[in-house]
Structures are given as structure tokens and as C-alpha cells.
């Protein structure tokens, strides 16, 4: 008998590090997220797909997205709902600002405890930090086993999940008891696209702060009439988190110094692609025993 699962996907809205401008960093060395285009972290989309696949395998299961970030991070929850997630939670509070991976994991673990899922699915890592630390750290904070670099879920039943993992130089199939945390690799299937019907259904999904900011009774009444449009918003107090473990105070790692990348100019010898230039270069490389 397959049971229905309660699945939580950890997703992060990240600055698109491929398009970084001059004002991307603040004086304290933290990222000025406001100055950058924000996207759904790519591997978190792979994670969402795995969660939706699990839901397909076990009908009646629910997929909720948990994200921590500024109010605009609600975008990733809406995006996920357009692709098949049932809803989500935005964890937002100024007290989270400046959190390193450990403080972030602590905050997320507090919210996850409240959501009480069977399976937590996260992307392997986020493109703004590339640390791959939050998945395993969340697992540890919750006292749950972890399966990292998941590529495919082979089966789930009787409180066990069987997962294929992609390692640097190989593949491993492991079984893990539920509840558990898994992180998903970019080599896993891409996320299904937004579905027109779901976009129609959820386009007015909003957090309470978003509705208050709009100051329109329309949305308030809509929310009352259609509770599924409600994106949950939690603060530090809502998840009963300890201030001392959050933000800069709760982060063991500190940024001592940030240097913008300035290449040390070395005098490169400029060559054209002409036959003569290339020929001279190759002769030089052979003569200096760099080649051959």
C-alpha cells in the first residue's frame, strides 16, 4: 500500500549570478539582492520535479514549497504552484538577514518542524553560493537521514524510499527510511513547465503582506472565498525560533574581506590569427620544449 506523503520542497530565490552589475555588493560584504534579477534557483526546480513525481507516484500526496527570503521571494512559491505544487510558506523576517548556511538551516528547520513532512526535497546547491550545505545541515538539525545528489526516485513505500544518486565517479542506489531529506542534482529531470490551468487558478495567490500592500478589498475578499490562494507567511515568532541562532549573530562564519575580482595585468603578447603569427608561435613553443 502506498501511503500519501506530505512533501516539502526547499526553494530559494537567487540573484542571477550570470548578470552581475557594479552595485551587487553592499559595504558589509553581503549581497545586495535588490540590485539583481531574481530567479528560481535552477536545482531547486529539479527538486520540485522530484516532489511532483512523488506526488504522481502516490496520489493524494501534497507538495508545499518552503522558501526563506524577502517578501518578493513569494514569486518562487507562485511559480511552483503554476507547475503543480499545492501551496507554500514564505519565511520572511528582517532578523534572518545576514544568515550564513548554518543560521539559514536552523531557520528552515524550525519552519519544517511546524509543517511536519515525510520527505523534504531540496536542490543540491544554489547558484549564488554554490555551497551545497543547507540540505545536509537541515537534515542534521531535524535529526533526519539525508540522501544527497539524488537523480531518480526508484520507489517509495512502507516508510522507505529508494533513490538513485549521482556521484562524481559513479552511481549509487540507496534505501532510506522516512522521514528523510533528499537533495537533487542538476542531472535529474528538468521541471515540468507551468500549466495554463494552474496559472489561471493561482495567479492571484498572495501572501498577507502582498495583499495589505495592495490595499484592495478585492484581494481580501478573494482570499476569503478561495483559501487555496493563501500563501502562508511566517516570521521568526511564528516558527518559534531563537533570535540568537539567526542572522549575523547566529552565523559562525563571518566575511572578513571581499575583493572585487581585478585581474593582475600581465603583458600578453598580442597575436593575430594569421598563418605567419601562428607558425611563429608554434615554432617558439617547440623550441622552448613547451611542446614535444
Amino acid at each position, binding site marked *: 500500500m502506498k501511503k500519501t506523503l506530505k512533501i516539502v520542497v526547499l526553494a530559494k530565490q537567487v540573484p542571477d*549570478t550570470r548578470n552581475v552589475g557594479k552595485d551587487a555588493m553592499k559595504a558589509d560584504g553581503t549581497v545586495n539582492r535588490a540590485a539583481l534579477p531574481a530567479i528560481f534557483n535552477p536545482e531547486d526546480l529539479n527538486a520540485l520535479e522530484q516532489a511532483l513525481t512523488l506526488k504522481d507516484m502516490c496520489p493524494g500526496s501534497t507538495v508545499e514549497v518552503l522558501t526563506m527570503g524577502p517578501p518578493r521571494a513569494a514569486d518562487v512559491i507562485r511559480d511552483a504552484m503554476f507547475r503543480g505544487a499545492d501551496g507554500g510558506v514564505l519565511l520572511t523576517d528582517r532578523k534572518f538577514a545576514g544568515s550564513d548556511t548554518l543560521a539559514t538551516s536552523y531557520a528552515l528547520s524550525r519552519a519544517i518542524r511546524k509543517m511536519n513532512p515525510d520527505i523534504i526535497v531540496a536542490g543540491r546547491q544554489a547558484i549564488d553560493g554554490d555551497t551545497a550545505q543547507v540540505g545536509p545541515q537541515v537534515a542534521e538539525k531535524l535529526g533526519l537521514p539525508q540522501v544527497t545528489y539524488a537523480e531518480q526516485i526508484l520507489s517509495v513505500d512502507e516508510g522507505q524510499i529508494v533513490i538513485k544518486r549521482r556521484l562524481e565517479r559513479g552511481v549509487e542506489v540507496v534505501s532510506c527510511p522516512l522521514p528523510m531529506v533528499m537533495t537533487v542534482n542538476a542531472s535529474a529531470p528538468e521541471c515540468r513547465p507551468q500549466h495554463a490551468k494552474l496559472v489561471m487558478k493561482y495567479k492571484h495567490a498572495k501572501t498577507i503582506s502582498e495583499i495589505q500592500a495592495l490595499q484592495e478589498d478585492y484581494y481580501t475578499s478573494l482570499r476569503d472565498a478561495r483559501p487555496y490562494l493563501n500563501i502562508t507567511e511566517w516570521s521568526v515568532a511564528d516558527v518559534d525560533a531563537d533570535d540568537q541562532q539567526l542572522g549575523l549573530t547566529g552565523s559562525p562564519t563571518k566575511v572578513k574581506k571581499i575583493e572585487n575580482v581585478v585581474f593582475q595585468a600581465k603583458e600578453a603578447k598580442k597575436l593575430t590569427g594569421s598563418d605567419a603569427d601562428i607558425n611563429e608561435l608554434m615554432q617558439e613553443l*617547440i623550441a622552448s620544449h*613547451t611542446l614535444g
Partner: protein
Amino acid sequence: MRTEMNNIFVYCEIENGAVADVSLELLTKGRELADKLGCKLEALAIGHGLQGIEKKLAAYGADTVWVADAADLAPFRTLPHAAIICGIFKEEKPQIALFGATSVGRDLAPRVSSALHSGLTADCTSLEIGDHTENKTGKEYKDLLYQIRPAFGGNIIATIINPDHRPQMATVREGVMKMQEAAKPGAGEVKTVDYKKYLKDTDLAVKIIEREMEERKVNIKGASVVVAGGYGMGSKENFGMLYELASVLGGEVGASRAAVDAGFAEHARQVGQTGVTVRPKLYIACGISGQIQHTAGMDQSAMIISINNDEAAPINKIADYAIVGDVMTVIPKMIKSYKQNSK
């Protein structure tokens, strides 16, 4: 009363009884740091069939080798290894703990850092010892580990410190640090770990059903010539020309992250912060712009030639020769010229 040694620990990855290169590289670096700090270098060997492993680890400078040897401990599984490491660290209180930034280390180190509430910096490209003064309080810290890494898509270089929590933890990719036997080998004193006292039954709940490890097919790390292509190569088909040049010059093909992401080459060929670090005699960068993420993995090459139609490409700032031109016409000329001149 036991004294707290505050030494440097290196977690050693072992596959089929052989120590991974990355672990020997970390021991080499750890030895240097230990000498600077005047402390000991200790190696953790957790696995099965580890008899005699201390000899290899001592050659790379390990003063002490902690050995936990049991069938349950190999192949690597997160929870038992994490529990044993946490148990040892709680008793030994290391000041620094280093892990490879590998499938194993990047899975294990965050678990350990969370359990010990110690800071962890991923994928460091440099580790140094230095002091720190806290701006607000004026409090001074001596001999911290500076954990240096590119961040934010490689647009910045960050120096991270963990002033108040121990151990100071870092992961480092394979090939970033040099691997060198110690001038004076360590004592390699074996300490057999009574590992069972650290394990709970639930630590063994994840079971490995199947495991297929491939031999390393691509060895760009050991190549004396690396011909690397970037996104500017345009397609996987165009990469074919790089294989031809590499084969003529007796080298290997590397790739930038952008080229790997675009599917032009497999990940094993990726050079840079999230790939392999190489130090060949000659590095030929073809259609590579030269983001720091990439250059961090190749700027120690003895000679760098760039081929790029953009004269202002950052790669030209670190290149010895900058060929401004179209890769698709330049590479065949190089092949032809080499064949003619090397006869």
C-alpha cells in the same frame, strides 16, 4: 585531566583501500598550516581494510592517524561517518578540520558542522593563517584560518573566518592544493577508534543497495597540455576540433563551466572552481572569456595561450599569448603548423 590539543584534522577519503588524491593534498596543506601554528596534524581514516594505511598518511605529514575499521563503515555512508567524526571532535577539540570538496566531503562536512555548530566554508581556493580584529568590539583574534573562495558567480573573492567557533572547517576541491610528501614524515601514530560508542542504530538505517563506481576516464589533471574550450566554441560539434588539437599536441581537452552547462563537454572535463584545477605546461583557452571561476582552476599553468575574437576578454589579462581571432580558423592552423614544425 586531558589537555586539549587543538590540532588540525584532515578527513581522508578511502576507496578500495587507496587514499584519494584530494586527501593527500589536504594533508600536504595541513602539514604546512600545522608547522605554522606549532600544532599536530591528525588524519581520520574511517572505512574497512585499513591495515597499514598510516604509512601513506604519515608520508604526507600525519602525526596521528585515527583508524575506525569495520565492514559497516565502507563504502562511505553519511551518518556513521558523521557520528564518528563528531564524537572524536568533541573530545579532541581540533582548531581546524579539512575535507575534500567531493561527493563525500560536500555531503559529510555540512552535517558535521551543523552538529557541532561550527562554521564551514565550501570550495576554498586558498587557506592561510592570519589575525583579525573585530570592528565593533575591538576584540583581537590570533592565528585564525582565512578561508578564501570565489563567491557570487566568481565575481568576488571572499575571505571567510570563524572567529568564535571550533573547529574552523573548510572543504577544498581536488587539485587545488599541491600534493607533496612531507620533508619530514609524521610519526603516523595509530589511534584505534572505539567507534561503536559513537553510533546509534539509526545511523545505519540508510542502506546501499547497489554501487557502481567508474574508473576515472578523463585525466586532465595529469595532462601536460590542456586544450580548453568555452561557450564561445558554439557547439559540441565544434569541440571536436579541440580533441584533434589535444591529440596532436599530446594533451587533454578541458572545458569551462559555461561549455559544460551547455552540453559541449562532460563534467569530468570542467576546469575551474567547481571543476578540476590544472597546472599544465601549456594551457590553450579557446573561446573562453575568463571568469574568475574558470581562471581559479588554471591560472597556475606555466604558459597560457588564449584564442578569442574579443581582444578585451578577461582571459587575455592572464594569458602569455593572446591570439585575437576566430578559433575555428586558428586551431586548424595550429594543428598544421605543429605537424610541419615538429617533424
